[in-house]
């Protein structure tokens, strides 16, 4: 066989099972696009910004659990991808970014649209490649898929100079597609030690994170909780691992947790940390996090163990393998005293959802949309108050139902990630909760949603401010609101209308619940505008750097 580098890349992507690629062409990746245009297996989604393409890939990967691919050209195309790649690194999302580069002979000459993509992406990728010959592609493309999906997943960048895309190679056979490596064997002594500590504990809590979702082991985590009678707190990334309405579910822990959740953690004598990384938004001030507890830490990435908090016992391994090995060793134990204590904390310090019944309130619209969209819906958010409210109030039932930028906290994530989710799961309802600050950071890809008639439902709570920044100024900067209020406002309904998106304004509706129902039920993309007050903080809130017990607001008033 004889093919060009570009044809080889496209064929190898087809062989990996890739069916959708978002991206933008430019001078340095036109050979790749020319080859992609000949593919009848891969659909291309032309975005309006490369960051949007990156978040579309993330949306696909977060829903499917499999690597997703996006394309960008050299120079500004590549630099525009960086935020989406860094975001994927922090949340361990398997995406593969294939960038064009100036021809090999011109690298290092400050050629037109040349930037050091390799150097720029070293600290924000799991691994990256600068391909230096067409023959290398046979190794590099399968390796990119293997690396992105093996162990702790993460983003991979493959930078391909234009002349490598155009060079011809003769070869006999295609390489095998890149697959997830098999996991190293568990050390059973570690598992047995963990089981013994769990069995001896009077007041254990499970602390479950994104690693449980990545390893598709939510059912095993729930089985562990049920067998041991162990209450379970979830990280932001772990929402959906245990259904919100399950009696053992404590909801999200940390900065915007319900009061009782952080209080229960204060009381526990054993913290079983599974697929988590002790993020500062979850732990608060680390020395005061779970002060009475021994810690078991289970993670596939050895560098996470003992990074923030020294564990009393750790298990290095895939969470799914570990849970399967652990479960038979767990004794069914009567922990009714502890569960009673937790229930009493919940009774006296519940999650307070203000104005839950009003579909035009910041929380009410989330609950109403959840009810209308049903339990199979995929929920995306941007970053800010609306994100924390959704995390607090949405009735999550399933893993991979919740797509949010956890580690990097990227405003602009939500809408393109929702497009990616809808492309990956066309038969499911996709909600995107956003704010007026966040949506502006990638609003251009409303055009992409319109062009492909992608049925995302964007629920925009608009306080004409950077709400979470403003809330910090309110609480910690003497109410000096500086650079957090917009002095004039834009008309989002007109903007969305201009993009050819159907619009609804709950602020002008006589029957907001009915309007919301119509918007969610109608085909194609819709924007639902919900004007809200800037003076509605998200409570409770732990001040940054404080212990999780120092919560502000959210008290039960009765």
């Amino acid at each position, binding site marked *: 066989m004889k093919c060009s580098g570009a044809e080889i890349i496209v064929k190898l992507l087809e062989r990996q099972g890739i069916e959708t690629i978002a991206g933008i062409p430019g001078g340095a990746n036109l050979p790749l696009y020319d080859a992609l245009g000949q593919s009848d297996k891969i659909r291309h989604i032309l975005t309006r910004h490369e960051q949007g393409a990156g978040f579309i890939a993330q949306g696909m990967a977060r829903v499917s659990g499999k690597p997703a691919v996006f394309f960008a050209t050299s120079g500004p195309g590549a630099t525009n991808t960086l935020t989406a790649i860094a975001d994927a690194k922090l949340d361990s999302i398997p995406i593969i970014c294939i960038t064009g580069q100036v021809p090999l002979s011109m690298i290092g000459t400050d050629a037109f649209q040349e930037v050091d993509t390799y150097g720029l992406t070293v600290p924000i990728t799991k691994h990256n490649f*600068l391909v230096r010959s067409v023959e290398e592609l046979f190794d590099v493309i399968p390796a990119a898929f293997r690396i992105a999906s093996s162990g702790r997943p993460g983003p991979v960048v493959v930078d391909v100079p234009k002349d490598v895309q155009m060079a011809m190679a003769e070869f006999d056979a295609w390489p095998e597609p890149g697959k997830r490596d098999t996991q190293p064997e568990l050390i059973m002594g570690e598992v047995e030690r963990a089981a013994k500590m769990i069995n001896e504990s009077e007041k254990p809590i499970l602390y479950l994170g994104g690693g449980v979702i990545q390893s598709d082991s939510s059912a095993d985590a729930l089985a562990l909780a049920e067998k041991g009678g162990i209450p379970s707190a979830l990280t932001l990334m772990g929402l959906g691992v245990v259904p919100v309405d399950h009696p053992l579910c404590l909801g999200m822990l940390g900065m915007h947790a319900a009061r009782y959740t952080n209080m229960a953690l204060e009381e526990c004598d054993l913290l079983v940390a599974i697929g988590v990384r002790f993020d500062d938004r979850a732990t608060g001030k680390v020395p005061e996090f779970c002060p009475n507890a021994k810690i078991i830490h289970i993670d596939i990435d050895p560098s996470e163990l*003992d990074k923030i908090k020294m564990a009393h016992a750790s298990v290095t391994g895939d969470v799914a393998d570990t849970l399967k090995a652990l479960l038979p060793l767990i004794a069914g134990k009567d922990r009714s005293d502890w569960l009673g204590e937790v229930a009493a904390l919940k009774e006296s310090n519940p999650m307070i959802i203000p104005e839950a019944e009003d579909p035009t309130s910041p929380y009410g619209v989330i609950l109403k949309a959840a009810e209308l969209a049903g339990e199979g819906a995929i929920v995306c958010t941007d970053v800010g108050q609306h994100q924390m409210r959704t995390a607090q109030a949405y009735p999550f039932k399933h893993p991979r139902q919740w797509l949010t930028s956890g580690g990097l906290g990227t405003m602009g994530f939500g809408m393109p990630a929702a497009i990616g989710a809808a492309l990956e799961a066309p038969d499911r309802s996709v909600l995107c909760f956003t704010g007026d600050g966040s949506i502006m950071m990638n609003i251009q890809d409303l055009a992409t949603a319109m062009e492909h008639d992608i049925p995302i439902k964007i629920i925009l709570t608009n306080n004409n401010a950077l709400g979470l920044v403003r809330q910090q100024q309110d609480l910690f900067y003497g109410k000096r609101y500086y650079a957090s209020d917009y002095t004039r406002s834009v008309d989002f309904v007109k903007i969305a209308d201009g993009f050819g998106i159907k619009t609804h304004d709950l602020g002008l509706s006589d029957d907001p619940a009915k309007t919301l129902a119509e918007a969610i039920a109608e085909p194609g993309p819709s924007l639902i505008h919900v004007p809200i007050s800037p003076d509605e903080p998200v409570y409770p809130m732990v001040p940054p750097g404080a212990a999780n017990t120092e919560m502000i607001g959210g008290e039960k008033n009765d």
Partner: protein
Amino acid sequence: MIKQTVLELSVNNHPGVMSHICGLFSRRAYNVEGIACMPVNGGGTSRIWLLVNADERLDQMVKQVDKLEDVLGVERHDGGHAVFAKMAEFVQ
């Protein structure tokens, strides 16, 4: 004086490897006091020796280095290594 140690890395030999390794140290403001690198096995792999201060972050550094795709193995020599003793002669 701060205690020093030597990390001996076996790595794939290509132009990006040094940047991956040094990046891990620089982004954590962890100084590398000395570096030596030589190709082995005809140039397919290289050996890198890093002379670093042994502060409390070193275990985490070793784990991070070990995670790199192009790093094939890491050994730690708390008693130092002859390569730096010999190189020291050039800066006397």
